[in-house]
């Protein structure tokens, strides 16, 4: 009993699966009305569609979204056609019905076009070209294609690249090195017998922050190096206070 009841629903599902989307089904339903596509009953079409979607959903809940979107739109269309609240709604319904009919006609035309193509003998399936073509064409690639535009383009590219290279070549580093600081410290200490601030031995020139820091670091390293070798003495009164320096020979203490 229940098996026979399920049967019509299943056939519906099967037929739904055979369609390439809602429009395809609608066109099929419209054709079944046995009238010209210009005179289809949109209302009957809507009812049939909605009935098919409903029975399909009863068996299978997950129905692709476009089927449901079309169902919702058709339900709206039906309400406009059957129970328009005013003239505006009635006109909306008529326009929408005509849009639907036009879309169905367009699809029908395409189907007919596809069928027309399909009815033609197709090369490679129904008709066959020469299976073993003979090629008498020889390709001569001995010549070179040259034109002024590509010569100039190449020249510009080369010059631009060379120019870019020159422009972006990094300048040599001119920071105050430890070697420079050692030389300056030893040569100046001879003339400064008293304790004096290490900072006094930094060359005055650098203004850039990075260059100044480099000079500071190099001079401190040179001072430490000379203190280690016993050439000079270093003293610092407080943390982060000024570092004092004097030659080891004339200990100022």
């Amino acid at each position, binding site marked *: 009993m229940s098996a026979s009841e399920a049967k019509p629903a299943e056939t519906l599902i099967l037929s739904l699966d055979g369609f*390439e*989307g*809602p*429009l*395809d089904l*609608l066109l099929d339903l419209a*054709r079944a009305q*046995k*009238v*010209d*596509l210009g005179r289809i009953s949109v209302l009957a079409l809507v009812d049939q569609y909605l009935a098919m979607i409903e029975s399909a959903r009863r068996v299978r809940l997950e129905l692709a979204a*476009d089927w449901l979107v*079309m169902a919702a739109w058709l339900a709206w269309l039906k309400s406009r056609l059957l129970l328009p609240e005013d003239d505006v709604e009635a006109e909306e319904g008529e326009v929408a019905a005509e849009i639907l009919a036009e*879309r169905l*006609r*367009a*699809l*029908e*035309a*395409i*189907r*007919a*076009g*596809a*069928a*027309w*193509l*399909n*009815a*033609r*003998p*197709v*090369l*490679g*399936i*129904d*008709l*066959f*070209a*020469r299976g073993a*073509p*003979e*090629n*008498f064409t020889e390709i001569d690639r001995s010549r070179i294609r040259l034109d002024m535009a590509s010569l100039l383009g190449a020249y510009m590219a080369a010059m631009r690249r060379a120019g870019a290279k020159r422009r972006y070549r990094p300048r040599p580093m001119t920071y105050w090195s430890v070697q420079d600081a050692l030389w300056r410290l030893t040569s100046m200490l001879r003339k400064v017998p008293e304790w004096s601030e290490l900072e006094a031995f930094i060359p005055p020139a650098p203004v850039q922050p990075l260059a100044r820091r480099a000079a500071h670091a190099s001079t401190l390293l040179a001072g430490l190096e000379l203190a280690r070798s016993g050439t000079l003495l270093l003293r610092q009164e407080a943390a982060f206070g000024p570092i004092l320096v004097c030659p080891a020979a004339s200990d100022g203490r």
Partner: protein
Amino acid sequence: MADESGFLPGERLVEAMIFASREPVPLRVLATLLPPDAELDAVIAALGARYQGRGVELVEAGPGLMFRTAPDLAADLRRVVEVPRRLPRAAMETLAIIAYHQPVTRAEIEEIRGASLSQPTLDALLEAGLISTRGFKEAPGRPNLWITTPGFLLQFGLKDLRELPKREELLIDPQNRAGGL
């Protein structure tokens, strides 16, 4: 005009040239084969008559001429020659939309069919060399525009796209047509 063997000057050469090629041979190429005083039209007409009713026929295809097997032999040949499968309905409809509405975007194709374009359908048409893209539509997202290829004309035996029946011709008495197909 014809020599004692019954050939027009250059006829054998034109025959050999078309026969050698798998693709249609453009008329201007054939014209270069003829002696200066020969008329290509007359040569082609004579050649076509010679192949009339034979197993191989001379036909116009796209921009030129080609030999191909006679249509009535299709069924017998298919038994011995391996042929690719016919395109499924979705692919044929998509092809028809592109043929009629080109250049056309994917979204427009889907709008007309009321169904999304599946990857297998697109692949089948591309692999068969029937469709291609040309440029973009100046619209948000700049979607590709699809067109049919010269291979489409060749495979379906069309001289050019104007040979496709007009929409009005297709929609005459759709009931009968639908029933007949």
